[in-house]
């Protein structure tokens, strides 16, 4: 090795030593700061009970446990719920993006599987006149119908929501009062949650580039109102209320009926309870 090489090695070693010392000093200096940071983080993750009641004005989310009921034997398929939901929640008025929707199951004579359509079926769009209006076409009026019924659907606000589990940014979460919400500021539009939902309740809003879905009109229920779809349903097919209140409409609905949930085998424990469903409704 040449002597000048040796000096250059020594110089490099000296430089690294200095760098190391500086880093150590800096580490020690900010170490105290870092400890402080970790304490704040730890403090943040503890539920701050004093702030809970002031989170939403005049509303304490620890005192409610919301649930939804659907009586499919009453639904007339007028789609006023779909219309109201679109208006209430500024959902784009095209026929393919919905927070809530209604399915029609029709069993024709001699067929062992139901024919299923919803408001975004081309025949129904044609009957409504435009994609911004919703109605079921009377397409089976001359057919031999053995059995037919309508099933309103919406987000099930599962107790163990798979959509929340897959969200990489914490943009979707389950509130204490039992609703799964989406934080549109934190949503990065990856659509994992759309894939994860077994009910197809989520859709992608291409204008805002975020995922969207039913919130049971969280802005209404926290003000003491009913969700818009429940408010406008003319036949009482949609029932909403607080499970913590024993005389609420939903508590009575669950107590007085043999209800079932959709896809119970997934273990999501949905919170939308159905009455009058056929075995073919998934």
């Amino acid at each position: 090795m040449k002597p000048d090489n040796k000096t250059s090695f020594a110089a490099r070693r000296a430089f690294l030593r200095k760098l190391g010392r500086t880093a150590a000093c800096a580490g020690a200096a900010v170490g105290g700061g870092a400890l402080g940071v970790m304490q704040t983080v730890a403090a943040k993750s503890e539920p701050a009970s004093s702030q809970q009641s002031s989170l939403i004005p005049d509303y304490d989310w620890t005192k409610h446990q919301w649930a939804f009921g659907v009586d499919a034997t009453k639904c007339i398929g007028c789609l006023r719920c779909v219309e109201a939901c679109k208006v209430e929640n500024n959902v784009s008025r095209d026929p393919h993006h919905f927070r809530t929707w209604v399915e029609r199951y029709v069993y024709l004579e001699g067929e062992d599987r139901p024919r299923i359509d919803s408001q975004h079926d081309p025949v129904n769009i044609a009957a409504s006149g435009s994609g911004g209006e919703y109605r079921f076409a009377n397409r089976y009026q001359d057919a031999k119908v053995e059995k037919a019924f309508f099933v309103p659907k919406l987000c099930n606000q599962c107790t163990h929501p798979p959509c929340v589990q897959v969200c990489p940014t914490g943009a979707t979460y389950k509130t204490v009062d039992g609703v799964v919400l989406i934080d549109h500021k934190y949503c990065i539009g990856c659509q994992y949650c759309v894939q994860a939902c077994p009910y197809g309740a989520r859709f992608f809003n291409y204008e805002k580039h975020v995922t969207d879905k039913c919130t049971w009109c969280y802005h209404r229920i926290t003000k003491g109102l009913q969700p818009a779809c429940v408010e406008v349903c003319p036949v009482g097919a949609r029932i909403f209320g607080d499970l913590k209140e024993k005389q609420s409409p939903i508590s009575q609905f669950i107590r007085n009926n043999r209800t079932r949930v959709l896809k119970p085998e997934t273990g999501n424990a949905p919170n939308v309870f159905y009455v009058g469903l056929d075995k073919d409704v998934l």
Partner: protein
Amino acid sequence: MPKHIVRLIVLLVGFVVVALIAKSYFTDDSFYRYGHYRADSVPEIAAQEPAYQTPRYCRDCHSERVAQWSANNHKTVSCEVCHGPARGHPQKGKLPIPADVVKLCTLCHEAMPGRPGTQPQIQVATHNPNASSERQCIACHNPHSPKIKGVVAAVTGNIAEGKKRAAVCAGCHGPDGISPNDAWPNLAGQNAAYLVRILAAYKSGAEKDVMMTPVAQALGDSEIQDLASYYASLSCKEAPSAPGAGDAVSGRALAAKNCAACHGETGIGTNPAWPKLAGQKAGYLTNMLKAFRAGLRKDPMMAGVTRGLSDADIANLSAYYAGQRCEAIPEGGTKP
């Protein structure tokens, strides 16, 4: 410990510290408050202003309409289902009164497989094909009180018995049911079912009239049936058509739009529970239309129809119907 290991550890610690500081800098203050999400997003979502305001919001100003609506069959259909969300009303203007009522009403009432049997449904093609298209439904049905009054079972009175009882009525309504006074109605040839309904209403107090209330209260149910059968059996041929002060030509246009769906183009309707108007006294028709408009006669349907009529409109309508021939053969048989 070897020096190079110490260096590595120190570098690693430095990296972790920088990462933690960066994380705390970029993470929202409220992020871990309740869990792995931003707690501030909850009040943000909850702060959205509701669009649908519920009927309580409507009641303060539209109390009369709300009272009628809430007492009748459409009480489960919230105001905003038909009139749209009330957010911003009245500051930002009026709420729509549905223009295409056929489209709106058939959303719920078109007969369709899958609708529960308890839901009132119609065959759109055959349900009252006489009505003009755009006002088809609300021509007969008041949307705030949709059930049409007075569906009466067949009238089974005894005509001879009725003739005996009719002596009491003859003083005002004429011996043959043709009234001598322009303000009192002809009864000859009137629909029996309508006569039963209106007499029963006077008897029960549902309708009030200085003359008719005491008369009707003195009648038994079978006597009402007898009278109705008797007057329905009389011929109205001799009814003199006294054209009132109004203009029958403009009356015809008004009638076609407002009245024809129930009472027929020429004043002879299809439903026997509704009165024939053809050849009726013009003065009586005018009085009755004004009474409906003022709410003195209580019929939600007629109140709705007469609400928009001026005194001149009423005179024209009365003149038109008074000039029609009452013995014309009714179009069609029963109501589809």
